[in-house]
């Protein structure tokens, strides 16, 4: 049983393709305060490696990367 992560904001990027999920995530995280969590949902098959790279490069923390109901779901904590 994994802990439930509580998000502060949800961003649904379903149907969007590269580079839109990254662009929308970048904008959304800028609206948050440090330590707040963004839940991002994507159907782009390239999203898992893209979001890992985005988090590593920007220094925002990837708390969890998972698949839910056939969609990719990411929990990102603002640095």
């Amino acid at each position, binding site marked *: 049983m994994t802990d439930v992560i509580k998000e502060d904001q949800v961003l649904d990027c379903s149907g969007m393709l*590269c*580079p839109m999920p*990254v*662009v929308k995530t*970048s904008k959304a995280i800028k609206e948050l305060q440090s330590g707040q969590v963004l839940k991002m949902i994507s159907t782009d098959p390239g999203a898992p490696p893209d979001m890992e790279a*985005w988090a590593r*490069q*920007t220094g925002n923390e990837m708390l969890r990367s998972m698949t839910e109901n056939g969609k990719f779901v990411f929990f990102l904590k603002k640095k």
Partner: protein
Amino acid sequence: MSVWKTNDPEVKKILYVQTHGEKDPERTATPFFLATAGAAMDNEVCIYFTMNGPQCVAKGNGERIIIPRKGGGGKELKFFIEQAAEIGVRFLVCQPSLDLHGYTMDDMIEGVEMIGGAAFNDMACDADAVIGF
């Protein structure tokens, strides 16, 4: 003074070089959307348009150049240009490649900046990555 604006060592500098234009519509969108993704990762990103590249940022071509898609329904290049510009990607051209097409800066879309060969090489030496198309 460098064309790069950042002094922050944490911010990486990525320089894309686009040499293709109207004759190769399938080669025109990628530098814009990779640059967009790069800027979304908090990097400083510029695209340098040379050879046929300036055709990508000439007024009217954003609407004229259609990115082909198998089965039809391709997008206008304009979509990718605006997406990149909106997130802060800067567009650079050089005089000789404008002359090649009979362009002046007035033929370029808003925001395009002119640099020369020395500034380009200076930017390349200072960049964390230079990616050519």
